[in-house]
């Protein structure tokens, strides 16, 4: 009885300590939100308050009315949605071929993919810039969407899911006279739906947060996505920290929301496969 009691106390102490540490981890977020509601004059006061002395919502008005923030938002949304949809289509088809179909050269092609996955994307920026120049798509959203939909990481992720689907099911579909495309669309895809959700989550977070690609391939302010847009916004607002924080809050909000809703799936998928970098 006392030992049980002692264990219970210990559990509470560890819980409190861990949550204090966890609070320290999200402190930058709390500070960011709190500052975004402050008047500029209160930002650098010390001791700082997490609940603003005077609440000021005009920073958000500034973000959404002055400058190109709404445009950046729309661009990010556009690029992310098209990237995710394209990634989903091409990747699921390729992963189906790798996971379920037999054809000559499969192992060779797959080995090439495996080797290419190792190459950091940062190494390929310059050649991509040259190729896009030839194709005439530098400074268009296509320069962001095209590389996003050809992700080798996504293929590996979905291939794993597709391989775990029992072969009896696709055999049964074959006996029923279904072609490969119908088997893919009506048997494999529905059964692999947790894998598809994972892919959508990882692909959209990655695309939304992507910074280096828009930095290099876009030069027109009107085409900027949120990441480069936020940097531009910061530079043009100098020391208006409260306004900059309001911009930062707007930039992270969609991803944080997605994360909080799908936390379980995301954590499970990262635990098993990592995330694309």
């Amino acid at each position, binding site marked *: 009885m006392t030992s049980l009691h002692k264990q219970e106390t210990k559990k509470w102490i560890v819980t409190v300590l861990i949550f204090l540490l966890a609070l320290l981890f999200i402190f930058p977020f709390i500070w960011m939100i709190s500052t975004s509601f402050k008047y500029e004059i209160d930002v650098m006061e010390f001791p700082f308050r997490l609940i603003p002395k005077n609440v000021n919502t005009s920073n958000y008005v500034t973000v959404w009315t002055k400058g190109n923030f709404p445009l950046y938002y729309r661009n990010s949304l556009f690029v992310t949605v098209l990237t995710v949809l394209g990634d989903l289509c*091409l990747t699921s088809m390729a992963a189906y071929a790798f996971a379920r179909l037999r054809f000559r050269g499969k192992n060779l092609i797959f080995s090439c993919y495996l080797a290419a996955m190792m190459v950091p994307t940062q190494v390929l920026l310059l050649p991509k810039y040259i190729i896009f120049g030839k194709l005439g798509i530098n400074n268009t959203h296509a320069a962001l969407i095209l590389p996003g939909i050809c992700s080798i990481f996504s293929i590996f992720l979905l291939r794993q899911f597709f391989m775990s689907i029992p072969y009896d099911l696709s055999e049964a579909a074959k006996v029923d006279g279904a072609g*490969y495309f119908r088997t893919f669309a009506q048997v494999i895809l529905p059964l692999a739906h947790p894998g598809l959700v994972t892919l959508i989550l990882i692909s959209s977070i990655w695309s939304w947060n992507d910074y280096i690609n828009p930095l290099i391939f876009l030069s027109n302010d009107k085409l900027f996505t949120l990441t480069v847009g936020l940097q531009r916004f910061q530079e043009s607002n100098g020391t208006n920290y409260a306004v900059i924080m309001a911009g930062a809050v707007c930039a992270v909000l969609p991803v944080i929301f997605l994360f909080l809703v799908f936390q379980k799936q995301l954590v499970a998928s*990262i635990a098993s496969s990592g995330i694309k970098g």
Partner: protein
Amino acid sequence: MKHKLTAAEREEEVAGYLFLLPNFLGTCLLIFLPIFITLTMGFSQYNIVKGLSGMKFVGLKNFASLIYNERFLAALKNNIVYTFTTVPLTVGCALLLAAILNKSIYGKEIARAMFFMPYVSSMVAISVVFNVLFYPNGGPVNGILSALGVKNPPGWFIDKDWAMVGLIIMAIWYQCGYYMIILLAGMQNVPQSRYEAAELDGANAWQKFIHMTVPGISPTLFFVIVIATINSFKVFDQINIITKGGPGYATTVLVYEIYRNAFTEYNFGVASAIAWVLLLIVVLLTALQWKGQKKWVNY
């Protein structure tokens, strides 16, 4: 081995090629071809006006020039310092957090989400926030340091001796939760019966951690260390946003030098040579990971 394909097999093969084709074309154009261009461009001189047809083979000239390139040498040194500090510190923190979260505590999932939250956020937003948090005059971090009695709190990102320290702190905070989750998954595979046996022998929490948990997850731990090392060589976003490699050369790193040489100096040959260096480092680390994987799996 050679045999004629039956009609059904031939049909399957055609289907396989068709399903793969769209992605394969994209991968060729956007991954295989760029790899080839990078590899050849390291040995060539590129003329922007003439384009790809004006590429001239110059042997090892680009690589030789790196030896005298002060910025590159500084970047390599900084990157190595960054790697040898962030990797042990991040993985160490992640390991401790995972070990504690693996125990029974209340609200495990909420705590896990809180530690993981930085990793899903945009690095640009994080950099913007940290830039103000670490603001030398009146920023909250220095405010706390002064309150704790530190006489001359550091200038962080504008001080050449402290800028890297600020970036390292940021990196630990940003990635810790991510590695924690991978390690936590590894720990859940360590059989509970082992711990129970150790408890009967009177082992305390620390002894269990060192003698049961760490050896039990050594393959995962090894994987995490290699991935963390590879990722530390890819660092770029926060550097371009906060320090631009400065003050001086204090925080320039390999990817930043690739970016700067390629897109502000238009020195494509040198940029590709640095890309080669980065690629070699990553390939070596990956090879190490594959070799180690076989050796370290211990049950």
